């Protein structure tokens, strides 16, 4: 018996590791190793199609070139603008939707399902859909705004700022419901008696929202902000389908620029530097957010 007991912790940790190892192996091979490889590649000059260049080690050259690259600077600005506009709008819409579907009413399940549909639609389909809606001739937007006055029809996606706005709109439509779900989960954690107490004290609806709902919703809002920022930073499908980065460079985002340098132009070293830069920015952002959420996420995970 004593022998058995002495073996148990050893056997338990052996079992624990055998349970974690397969998942860890897949994660390391297809997520962690690639990041390290990207970092390594970004220190080389490798151009597919120009094998005579070899793959010489050039140290930080690609990063220095990146800092001076006007297209990259534009892509960074567009990406930051996209992240800012789309996440703020998504949080606002998500909050409104969450407040609506938190209420009790007949057919709430159906309403929730209907609101989730844009989130479930493949992004590529949503992108084609919005491209079609804002089509210069057959588009629903023109039909709705101008009806029969065909001469007033606007070629929406050919104007830089309109195209940017439409890409933002498509993203907001697609993902507000996801933000709403995260916020809804936060709403459900707020105990009802708080509202009752406030009501007894004579607080109006706006005051209850301002002083109970918003403060207690902060962790959920921050979490939604975290998820949405990360996703907005990684936007690709929308741009690929709707605008290909254009018109001009109006919707040229970092991920699309990285894709072009790596896979269209075959500049492996430089493209890897772009990817690593995007990675580092997302990493920095997520560390800031995790600080703000107070690492409560990780704390609670610990048994």
């Amino acid at each position, binding site marked *: 018996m004593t022998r058995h007991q002495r073996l148990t912790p050893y056997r*338990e940790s052996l*079992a*624990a590791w*055998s*349970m*974690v190892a397969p*998942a860890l192996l*897949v*994660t390391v091979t*297809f997520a*962690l190793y*690639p*990041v390290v490889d*990207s970092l390594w590649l970004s220190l080389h000059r490798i151009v597919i199609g120009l094998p005579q260049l070899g793959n010489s080690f050039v140290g930080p050259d690609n990063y220095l070139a990146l800092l001076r690259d006007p297209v990259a600077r534009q892509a960074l600005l567009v990406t930051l603008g996209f992240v800012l506009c789309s996440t703020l709008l998504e949080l606002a819409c998500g909050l*409104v939707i969450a407040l*609506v579907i938190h*209420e009790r009413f007949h057919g709430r*399940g*159906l*309403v929730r*399902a*209907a*609101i989730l549909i844009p989130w*479930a*639609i*493949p*992004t*590529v*389909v949503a992108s*084609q*859909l919005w491209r*079609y809606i804002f089509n210069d001739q*057959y588009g629903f937007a023109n*039909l709705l705004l101008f009806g029969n006055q*065909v001469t007033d*029809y606007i070629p929406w996606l050919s104007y830089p700022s309109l195209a940017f706005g439409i890409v933002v709109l498509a993203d907001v*439509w697609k993902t507000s*419901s*996801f933000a709403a*779900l995260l916020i*809804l989960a936060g709403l459900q*954690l707020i105990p009802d008696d708080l509202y009752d107490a406030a009501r007894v004290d004579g607080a109006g609806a706006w005051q209850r929202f301002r002083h109970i709902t918003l403060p207690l919703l902060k*962790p959920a809002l921050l*979490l939604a902000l975290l998820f949405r920022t*990360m996703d907005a930073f*990684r936007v690709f499908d929308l741009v*690929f389908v709707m605008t290909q980065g254009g018109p001009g460079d109006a919707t040229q985002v*970092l*991920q699309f620029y990285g*894709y072009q340098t*790596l896979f269209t132009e075959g500049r492996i070293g430089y493209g890897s530097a*772009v*990817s690593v830069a*995007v*990675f580092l920015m*997302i*990493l920095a952002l*997520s560390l800031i957010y995790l600080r703000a959420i107070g690492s409560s996420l*990780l704390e609670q*995970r610990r048994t």
Partner: protein
Amino acid sequence: MSRRILLAVGILVSVGLSLLPFLWFVLTSFKSQAAIEAIPPTWWPSGNLGFYRSALFDHRLFDYMLNSMVVAGSTTILALVFAIPAAYALARLTIPGKRGLLAVLLCVSMFPQMAIAGPIWRLLDSLGGLNHRWGVVLPYVALTLPLAIWILASFFKELPPELEDAARVDGCGPWGTLFRITLPLATPGIFTAAILILIYAWNEFFFALLILTQPEQQTLPVGIALFQGEFTMPWGELAAASVVATLPLIAVVLLCQRWIVSGLSAGAVKG
């Protein structure tokens, strides 16, 4: 009273804005080519099924569907096979460095696809996985594992530990306890994780675009993104293909709304 009106307006606006844009695609898919190309375009379709026929047979929609089913199905199964034991170990067993592991997983779920795309392409090139459906399944599994593990671990943790303890006292090892006690109890959690993985794998575009370059292996999103006519955009066929690509997901969402909501909340906010 005003509160009820406000709620009704809120419901109408959010449901309307969610559904109407896609409804335009649905209407388009049943129109005739002439009705689509009319300027101004007509509102209502004539109930024409021609676009579905030509999308299915002239535009390889069949192949895309089949590929998406194979890819999404295998991703879901493999990801669950890897995630379930890992989540159980992280939720219930003592592992040195558990916090670090969870932090790493959280980081992985935030990786921009770009940061790993080039090396994954090279890796699959050397493994012979380019232009094979399994070539996208492996990265999909890696990228969905973090979310699956987080969701499953939080479900496992909410189960009462007494049953597991009893099994352990009776001499059941950790693997035995997982399979005989925890798994049957955690079916809703596993179901939730499966739905989320399935939706991800069905919709993913970036890696599918890079890895599957032959039309015979491409998935629905790639097929739909690269849907081009020679001279004009075949909007009718595209709308039909989009409806076909989306219907299974709408069915999943309608049927499983409850699990999706609880899964996302459990995986995220409740911690």
